[in-house]
Every structure is written in C-alpha cells, then in structure tokens.
C-alpha cells in the first residue's frame, strides 16, 4: 500500500488495522468520546493522535473506501438495512449537496446538449415534430450563405491574427520590463476588457461615424487621411469590426502573456548573457521560444472565439453591407430566431452541431496543452 499524500496515509493504515470497527461506526457515534478524551488528558498527545487516527478512519469515507470492496457485497445482500446504513453514513446528505449541480447541469446543460444532437435530425414547429434524417444538414450545407459566412469568419480570423496577435505580445514584453507603476500599466491595459461588450460596440459605432465629422475621421483628418466610410463599405466593414474586437480583448491576452513572461527562468537569461547575447538576441533566443506554448494556446483560443463571433457583426452591421460581415453564428441566429424566415430550429441545430464538433477538436487540443503546461 503506497500512500500518495502524507496526510491520508494514517487513516488508511488505521482502517486496514480495524476493518470491522469502521463498519459498525455511525458518523456521530465516536465524536463525543474523542472530544472528552482530548479534554481529559492534554499530555497524551501521541496516544491521542493515534486514537484520533482510528476515529478518523471510521468517519471518513475515504479511509473506509479501502475495505469497501468486500464489504459492499455483504451490505447489498442484506437489502433494506443497506439503505438505512447508506443514509446513516451520510449518503443522503451527500446527495442533497449534489442536487444543485445535478439539477442545474441536468436541465440546463446535459439535456440541451443531448437534445441538440437529436434536434439536428428533426423538423419541429414546437407543435409537431418529425424525423427528417440528414435533411437539415443537406439544407445547411447547400445554403449559398454558408461559404460566404465561412470565408468571412476566416477573414476575421486572419485580420485578428494580423492586428490582434502582435500588439498584446509586444505590449506584454515591454510591460514586463516596467519597474515603476507596473500596476498602473496593467490596469490601463485591462480596462477595455471590463467595459461591457455591448457598450464598447455601441461606443465604437459612434467613433466609426462615416461623416468627415466622425470621431475617427476627424482624428485621421489631422494627419491628412480620410474620410473613410468604415462600417458602410463592404471592404472596410470587417477590418473595422476586428479593430474594435482587438481593442476589447487585447488586455486579457496581455495578462496571460505577462504571467507567462514572469515564469521564464532567470537562469536562461543569465546563460544567454554569459554567451554574450544582447537584449534583442535574448528576446529572439530566450523569450519567444519560452512563450511558444502560451502563444499557441492564445492562437487556439482566438480560433475558438472567432468562430463564435456574434456581437460585433450583429450590432455593428447586422451582417451587411451585402453580407460582408455575415458570420456562422449570425447564420445560426437567423435560422432559429430571424423572424422573416420563420423559425427553422432543425437547420440551426444542425449547423451548431457541425460547428461544435469542429470547435470541440480545438478545445481538446487546448486542454491537452494547458494540462501539460500546468504540470511542467
């Protein structure tokens, strides 16, 4: 018997020593004896702790689990008394504690997940429901909007990587070398993240005013640029969305990078210095390679969040102009809740299931990475 943690080893061995005692114990039973004992003799610390070890073994489920293999058969064969025993040992209390999780997750997570896989093969108008096989998938896959939405999502991702990837990285590397008022820098960088996304989008919509008197057009006018149409032009609309999304999200990425930068071992920098490396060489040969993992993680996170972009296109442009900012989630929303078409829940779930399967692969990669990350 190899105990992994030192604190569990004692009750385990005690449970092995007296298995029949631990079966007969009620959870409340041994306690008064233990406490009077502790009160009666203060000197006997050693014997007291040994006694407590045995008491512990009786009351802990964890300690008793070891002997449970042979015992559980005996309990179940006794039928009715097994249930009372289970209640006495606190089985019912445990269920009471588990209930909020089971009910909430059951009704609002597990059931809807299963239901979405069922609904993808059905057609329903909430009154009658019929099975249609792969029809919903066929309908979605032949929708001329789908390639458009896929292209737009890919374009969003590309722009987000071009604009949104280097800025937080450079910012974080510079910020990690700030000695004075580092807290202020961090707060400033994180501030846009706490602004409600709806407010950010509506505020930027005001900034993106296409008239020459618009905020951005006035600003750019100072250096002789513009005026630009921003959201009203199909070429400008998507970059405008990405710019706002980058502004709103960069702070969170900066914090992730800062945490990663702090954990770069100082010895690596020292070793590089001994080899005569300057600051640029240290960034290139030490910092960036050390950040490789976290960079890949933020890349995966970017893909996952970009594929589910909804707020920006919905509030900025509604998918326009001329479907230039139509995204997959906007399509799902339009299928299910877009009033003009009538609710097509089947197609909406079919598309979301397909999207979910692709995203689940990315999340799996993500969790694999972060797991190996926190271990190392």
């Amino acid at each position, binding site marked *: 018997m190899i105990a992994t*943690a030192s*604190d569990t080893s004692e009750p385990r061995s005690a449970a092995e020593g007296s298995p029949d005692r631990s079966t007969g114990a009620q959870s409340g039973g041994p306690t*008064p004896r233990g*406490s009077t004992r502790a009160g009666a003799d203060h000197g006997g610390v050693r014997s007291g702790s040994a006694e407590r070890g045995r008491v512990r073994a009786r*009351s802990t*489920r964890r300690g008793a689990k070891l002997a449970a293999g042979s015992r559980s058969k005996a309990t179940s064969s006794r039928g009715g008394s097994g249930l009372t025993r289970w209640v006495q040992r606190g089985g019912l209390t*445990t269920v009471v*504690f*588990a209930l*909020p999780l*089971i009910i*909430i*997750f059951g009704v*609002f997570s597990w*059931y809807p*997940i299963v*239901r979405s896989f069922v*609904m993808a093969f059905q057609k329903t108008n909430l009154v009658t429901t019929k099975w249609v096989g792969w029809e919903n998938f066929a309908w979605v896959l032949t929708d001329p909007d789908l390639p458009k939405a896929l292209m737009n999502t890919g374009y969003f991702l590309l722009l987000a990587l071009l604009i949104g990837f280097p800025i937080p990285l450079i*910012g974080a*590397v*510079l910020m990690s*070398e700030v000695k004075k008022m580092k807290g202020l*820098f*961090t707060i*400033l*960088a*994180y*501030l*846009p993240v*706490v*602004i*409600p*996304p*709806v*407010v950010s989008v*509506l*505020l930027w919509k005001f900034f993106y*005013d296409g008239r020459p008197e618009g*905020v951005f057009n006035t600003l750019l006018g100072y250096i002789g640029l513009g005026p630009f149409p921003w959201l009203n032009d199909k070429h400008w609309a998507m970059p405008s969305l990405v710019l706002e999304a980058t502004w709103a999200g960069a*702070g969170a990425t900066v914090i*992730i990078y800062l*945490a*990663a930068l*702090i954990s770069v071992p100082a010895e690596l*920098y020292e070793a590089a*210095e001994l080899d005569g490396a300057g600051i640029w060489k240290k*960034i290139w040969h030490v910092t960036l390679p050390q950040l490789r993992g976290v960079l890949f993680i933020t890349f995966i996170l970017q893909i996952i969040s970009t*594929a*589910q972009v909804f707020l920006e296109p919905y509030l900025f442009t509604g998918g326009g102009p001329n479907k230039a900012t139509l995204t997959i989630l906007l399509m*799902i929303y339009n299928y299910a*809740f877009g009033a003009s078409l009538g609710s097509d829940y089947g197609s909406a779930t079919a598309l*979301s299931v397909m*999207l*979910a399967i692709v995203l*689940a692969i990315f*999340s*799996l990669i*993500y*969790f694999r990475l972060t797991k190996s990350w*926190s271990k190392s």
Partner: protein
Amino acid sequence: MSTLTIHKTRKAVTSSRGLISDFERRKPGIRVSVAGVNVLLFLFLMLACLGPMYLLVKSAVTPTQDTLRAPLSFFPNGAAWDNLDQAWNHVQVSRYFLNTIVLAVGSWFFQLLVATTGGYVLSVLRPKYAGVLNALVVCTLFVPSVVLLVPLYLTVLNPPLLGTSLLNSVWAIWLPAGASAFNVVLVTRFFDSLPREVFEAAKVDGAGPFSLFWRVVLPMSKPILGVVSVFAFIASWKDFLWPMLVLKNPEVQPLSVRLPAIQAQTDLGVFLAALAISTAVPVVFFLVFQKFFLSGAGMSGAVKG
C-alpha cells in the same frame, strides 16, 4: 496547491530579474532607451485604453449638436449635465440598471451555490459516483456554448416538470447561469488543495457535513470564492445574446439588451450618457477588486483545464 498559491508564487518570482539584467540597466544608453520606451508605452496605453473612455465621459455631458459637429473639441459651448438626468429618468436607464443588478446578483448566487456544493461533493464528500459526476461536468467544458443556444431556448420555453414557460422571467437567466463547468472545476481544484487534517479535526469536534461545509470549507475558500464571484458578476453584466433571446419584455431587460434597442430613437448625447452610466459600475468594480480580476485572468490562460 497550485491554484491556492498562484498569487504568492507569482509575487515571489516577480522580485527576481526579467529580460534586462541589472548590469545592462546601469548602462546609460540602455537606461535612456528603456525609460523612453516606458514613456511611449504609457502614452500609448493612455491613448488607446483611456482615450475612448475619456471621449465617452466627455460626450456624455456635451450637447448633442457639439458632439455631432466637432466630437473632439473640449466643451465648445459648455456642458450638458442634463444628458445624465435625461438618460437616468426619461430613457429609464434607472429601471434597466436595476434589472441588470437583479440579474447579476441572482446569477452570482446560483453560480456560487452550484460551484460550492458541487465542489464539496466532488472534492470532500467523494461518494462512489463522484468520478462519473466529475466526468460529466468536465465534458461540458468541451462543448461550445453555441450548441446550447437553440435547445436551451426551447428548454426555457417549456421546462421539464414545471409546465410553465420561463420566458420573460429572471429564472431563465439565473438557473442556466449556474451550469458553469469552469466554476465547478475551479472550486473543486481549490477544495482539493485544502488540508484534509482540518476537516478531520472538525469532524472529531462533532461537525457534520453541513457545518463542515458552512463553517470550515467555505471560510477557508475565500480567495477562490472571490474570483468566482467577480467573474460571475461581470459575465452577467456583459451578457447580451441570451438575455435578448429569453427576455422579450422591455420591462425586465437588462442594460446590455436595452441599449441597442433604444439607440435609434434616443438623442445621441443622452444615449452616450446612458452608455457611460452602464460602464461606470463594472469599471468601479474592477478598480476595487482588481486583484481578483487580474489573478483570475491569468488563471484562465495558464491554469484552466
């Protein structure tokens, strides 16, 4: 122990050196350029992060005509404090503000309830079915929220056993908010890191499962409960799509849903005042609880999973 000590270890490591060595910092050329870069970085952050906020606050109390004509000039014709009053009372931001708070507090409560009781079962009580339960919770981490949109909407429309629709009721926001696997995982991992000896000692002193939970485990878990609380509150304040779907009645809608809806028929100055008001609470919240925010943000990147 990792989540418990993450804050301390980070501080300890910070005190050691970073990219630039002390020796390099003493060189005049490097010292000047580092200082220059710091100043530039500071100016950039002020402009990029505080600039939009400044414009929002300024325009919120500027007459609409001035904002439309010259959005960057500084009060050419005086301030219009009336905008705030208009927004708060006439556009009824006060009501939506209250709705938002009610939704956020309820969501916070259910997230904490599910995460703490669930974490207690999975980490401390550990019944035989704990493994299955844990696997079922962790599974949902891999399912993007998109999948849930339509079926969750239909579930709320016609919930099992209740017989009445939850549409337009706060429960449609509160209850689904509780089903956050991330919270459960975070809290369970924190509970795992608590020393078992304390639990055993409490049991010896006669603590049952309920008082162990309420008087030992919860008080020991304040740091993680703080992180979960802050994130629950902010997430609820930010949420848009879900409340828009299930709260059709304007009387119960939160700010995030109402703001886009009132934009068209509201005077720009008043509208910007409404935006400023709805930004104030999360920003103040952030400044007060920044430690939780920043440690939580680091956690979701480096430790999540």
